[in-house]
């Protein structure tokens, strides 16, 4: 596809020997740049955790660990209570995802297809929150969560995650495109509104549900400030908060190993779904 479309440099220029030489030089330069800028830090992290404490502190540093110490990883797992914090993060992320999926799809379906009174006003109110920068509201939001007695409770992550105007709007826009005829046909066959949502709308909305799911999971997994405020109880903290709290008094190699472990789930998710994630980001933008 991209081979056929004409870009900045014409195919004719590239076909010439000089053009080819320039192309391959630029290509090599880009490969090196990408390797150094994006892959090397990650490589350095993964191998740094496998070095001995002396080796990691030595100058000049070694490119490859002289000896692979995997106990950095096992120490991190045990000393930093990573299973607890990873589990907390999983609970928080999947809960936020489930709550968002249930409440946002239901609300988006209602706004898109059920014509509630004040629907326009409600949608306006929801869209207006897009104008409010999320972080500027963390303090009053924290006070509200505290008043509700939700501090140190995963509900403090789950419920505010539902108030995501971007995802709700994404769903509503997708539902708007589903022709009325299809829904009416199902209703004539005797399906109720919930049944229509479940067996007609949702199966047709797989792509947008996938995008919303990934956004929801990534957002919670990567968040730091909100869980830092909400979870003062160490045993309840997600991995991002625990890493920072524990980073002060722990051996460097152990900390680095914990950093690697904390990165694995999201990087793995990305590598598995990279096509969809990249397509989602690209598509979302060109529409705008």
């Amino acid at each position: 596809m991209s081979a056929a479309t004409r870009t900045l440099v014409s195919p004719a220029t590239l076909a010439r020997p000089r053009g080819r030489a320039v192309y391959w030089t630029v290509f090599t330069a880009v490969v090196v740049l990408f390797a150094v800028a994006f892959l090397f830090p990650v490589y350095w992290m993964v191998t740094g955790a496998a070095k001995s404490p002396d080796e990691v502190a030595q100058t000049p540093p070694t490119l490859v660990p002289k000896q692979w110490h995997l106990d950095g990883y096992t120490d991190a797992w045990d000393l930093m209570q990573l299973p607890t914090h990873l589990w907390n993060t999983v609970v928080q992320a999947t809960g936020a995802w489930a709550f968002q999926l249930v409440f946002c799809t239901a609300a988006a379906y209602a706004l898109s297809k059920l014509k509630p009174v004040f629907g326009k006003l409600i949608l306006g109110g929801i869209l207006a929150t897009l104008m409010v920068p999320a972080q500027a509201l963390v303090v009053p939001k924290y006070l509200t969560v505290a008043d509700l007695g939700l501090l140190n409770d995963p509900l403090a992550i789950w419920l505010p995650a539902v108030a995501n105007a971007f995802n709700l709007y994404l769903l509503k826009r997708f539902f708007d495109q589903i022709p009325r005829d299809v829904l009416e046909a199902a209703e004539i066959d005797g399906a109720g509104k919930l049944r229509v949502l479940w067996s007609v709308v949702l199966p047709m909305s797989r792509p947008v549900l996938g995008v919303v799911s990934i956004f929801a999971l990534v957002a919670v997994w990567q968040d730091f400030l909100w869980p830092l405020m909400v979870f003062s109880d160490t045993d309840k903290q997600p991995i991002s908060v625990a890493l920072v709290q524990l980073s002060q008094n722990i051996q460097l190699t152990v900390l680095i190993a914990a950093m690697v472990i904390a990165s694995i789930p999201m990087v793995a998710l990305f590598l598995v779904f990279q096509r969809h994630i990249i397509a989602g980001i690209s598509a979302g933008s060109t529409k705008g």
Partner: protein
Amino acid sequence: MTKTAHRRPAEAIAVRPVKAPPPAGDRRRRRLAEQLRAHAFLIGGLLCFALFSWYPAIRAIVIAFQKYTPGSGAEWVGTANFTRVWHDPEFTAAWRNTLTFTLLALLLGFAVPFVLALVLNELRHAKAFFRVVVYLPVMIPPVVSALLWKWFYDPGAGLANEALRFLHLPTSNWSNGADTALVSLVIVATWANLGGTVLIYLAALQSIPGELYEAAELDGASLLQRVRHVTIPQTRFVILMLMLLQIIATMQVFTEPFVITGGGPENATVTVLYLIYKYAFLYNDFGGACALSVMLLILLGAFSAVYLRLTRSGEEGA
């Protein structure tokens, strides 16, 4: 879709006579039931928006004018919170740092991805690979990238100084020097976030019709002239969008200064959001924190309003 459209009238005809027009009272009751059902679907989401979006926004403004202690109530104090916060020496530092950070992030996180996307778009090989690699840092948790770079910036065995030594350049204090700390943080934020920008630029570049480049080349436009007169005007809308998004995002920076420098050295990296956090959780001064929040809210709300306005007009145009 066309198939169902053709079939439907027949079905409708078959069904309609059965449903005779109901009496007026019945119809009203049915409409009420319909409304109840619609709102039953809405209620969960609506409650969450009310509790965690609308109410906090109002509450921020209210508490900004109060002396507020959780548990023991509130007392109106007029604009005292604003004046107190205003006279805090950290206030000036926080705003100056935040604006500088945003400006530097704009220069770095904006020009670099554009050039990178331009080059990547020209490459004929391994495009998918580059797209994955450039986005990889975005998927690493921000806390991890902050800790990672904190380690790189270490004045002793840090990778950053090692690289400078390798290139025979003078070493730097990086995040530990008062004059280099902020730039060091901008580098981290750029590294961690530029992947998304590159992908969006790439998508925009791919939508430029090739004939424009051909025509420009026939007119004798050089490579740089083609960038200037074709690429940039064609992607102007995306550039503007990303610029606004970047301003909104970077003005809320928190994780990097909190994790890497702790606001120091000498307040060189205290940001507005960091100061809000300090007021709330160190000084227990929620009035001051909300006064600062309201200032940030007003400034960023203006940018967001422009952004939404533009996206909406862009959608109508498309």
